[in-house]
């Protein structure tokens, strides 16, 4: 018993981390399903509706319903990736070729460490975030690490030793660099407002959520929200910014030479980025687990309140994931030069202007109210 007590501080974080990774990976696989289903609905099709597992799939009405919704499809997809023949083309740099999918997925999974997904009220009556690591620099960690994901893509493009992946990798890196700036600059006003001097939160995401109890930042900082959203689409390599893949001109882009589970890892990484991006947008601009603008936190202090806050947060995240998918099947892909000019000529000046404007407002506010 004493031994357990001694190890508990070390054991518990591992348990939490494993639990969070499982949930996150589950979400990834189901957002793949969501992508396929929403795509098919938008195109007037049915989507995956045949995969049926024994027993569960044969419960009279429920089984048919679940099968029709494709609930068992992710299992089939995953198994397919696992059991396919591992093909490594002869012309690739084997070490980096194998490393690339891992490098693509790892950053996407790492960032969730600082992602708060709910709140609880501790024994002292102070609201605390539910998060693996509650650090002050949460936002910086996410910005820093999630951008590392591009290395996986660039490495894949380079190690494949083939022209289409190479072009895809180049495009991905150029796009990432272009939109990173606008993204960071769009976030600065948010934290300038959220982390007023003397507040305890600093750059933590929890602070950003707590500052939105009365008014969501989406309403208050619409320009920041818009720039951040566009940059988010670019950073996650989603349509209309999927320059790195762009099937029509680059075959499959950076993953042209990849198959089976290595491709699966890229695929999961893309959706992990989407989920992270959705969660981030919800935390920063859609009020996190706050109920509605003006009606912050009706959940109560009990365990049920905690669960409700998590549920409300995930609902918003699901909506954002849906929005990502919905956008993908609405807009056509931008041309490469359009992406560049949008990033450098429009979003970056806008973000700088937004920052300067907000700085002046804050300066005036501070001068006249103190």
């Amino acid at each position, binding site marked *: 018993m004493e031994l357990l007590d001694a190890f508990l501080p070390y054991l518990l974080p591992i348990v939490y981390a494993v639990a969070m990774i499982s949930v996150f990976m589950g979400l990834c696989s189901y957002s793949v399903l969501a992508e396929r289903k929403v795509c098919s609905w938008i195109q*007037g099709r049915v989507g995956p509706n045949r995969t049926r597992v024994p027993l569960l799939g044969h419960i009279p009405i429920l089984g048919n319903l679940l099968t029709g919704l494709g609930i068992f499809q992710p299992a089939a997809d995953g198994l397919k990736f696992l059991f396919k023949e591992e093909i490594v083309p002869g012309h690739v740099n084997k070490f980096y070729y194998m490393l690339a999918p891992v490098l693509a997925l790892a950053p996407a999974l790492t960032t969730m460490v600082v992602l708060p997904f709910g709140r609880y009220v501790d024994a002292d009556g102070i609201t605390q975030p539910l998060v693996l690591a509650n650090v002050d620099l949460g936002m910086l960690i996410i910005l820093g690490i999630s951008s590392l994901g591009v290395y996986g893509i660039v490495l894949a493009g380079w190690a494949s030793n083939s022209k289409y992946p190479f072009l895809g990798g180049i495009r991905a890196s150029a796009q990432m660099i272009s939109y990173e700036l606008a993204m960071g600059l769009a976030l600065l006003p948010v934290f300038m407002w959220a982390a007023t001097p003397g507040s305890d939160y600093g750059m933590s995401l929890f602070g950003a959520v707590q500052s939105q109890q009365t008014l969501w930042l989406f309403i208050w900082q619409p320009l920041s929200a818009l720039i951040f959203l566009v940059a988010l689409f670019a950073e996650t390599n989603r349509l209309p910014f999927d320059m790195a893949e762009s099937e029509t001109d680059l075959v499959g882009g950076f993953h042209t030479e990849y198959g089976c589970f290595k491709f699966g890892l890229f695929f999961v990484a893309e959706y992990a980025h989407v989920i992270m991006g959705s969660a981030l947008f919800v935390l920063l601009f859609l009020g996190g687990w706050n109920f509605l603008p003006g009606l912050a936190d009706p959940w109560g202090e009990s365990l049920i309140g905690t669960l409700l806050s998590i549920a409300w947060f995930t609902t918003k995240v699901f909506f954002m994931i849906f929005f990502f998918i919905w956008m993908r099947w*609405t807009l056509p892909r931008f041309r490469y030069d359009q992406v560049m000019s949008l990033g450098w000529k429009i979003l970056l000046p806008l973000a700088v202007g937004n920052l300067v404007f907000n700085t002046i407002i804050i300066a005036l506010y501070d001068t006249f109210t103190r």
Partner: protein
Amino acid sequence: MAKTKVLERKPLTPMEKTFLPQIVSGLKTTFGTMMQKDVTLQYPEERPNIPDNYRGVPTLVKDPNGREKCVSCQLCEFVCPPKAIRMTPGGIDAEADPERAHVEKAPKEFDINMLRCIYCGLCQEVCPEEAIFLQDVFSLSGYSREEMINNKEKLYELGGTLPDQHSKWDKKKAAEQSGNAH
């Protein structure tokens, strides 16, 4: 030279230049289609409606009294462009059908090679007895080349019975009974 007319385009308003209204209207459109009914046909379970004049697999039909209509005149065999039809003419069994025996012939063997058939429908068009029809069967598969040759039995099974507009045997009988045989 054909005259081309250059259409005047209105310059974009500042709001339109941001593309945001267009994106919103696009989102509305896709959301609208999402709410609509799916157009997918769940194929093996649901089958499409085949129109009457569809040119599917050629089949042999019988008349409403169960008689073979084909008299093995071999016109279809001769007209068939890819030479998919092979037929051996034969007589009619006198015991089974004394009325028609020694009057008409019937095919002894009738093979249509579906690997050769081009579904042109010339056999149906040329048939004087309206015995061969391209009906609504459109999905045909087999594991070997031999399986893809439809023999007589298979052709009648696929064809079934179609309503006969002429019913020549009934008319012949009626004429005989009224004493006006020819």
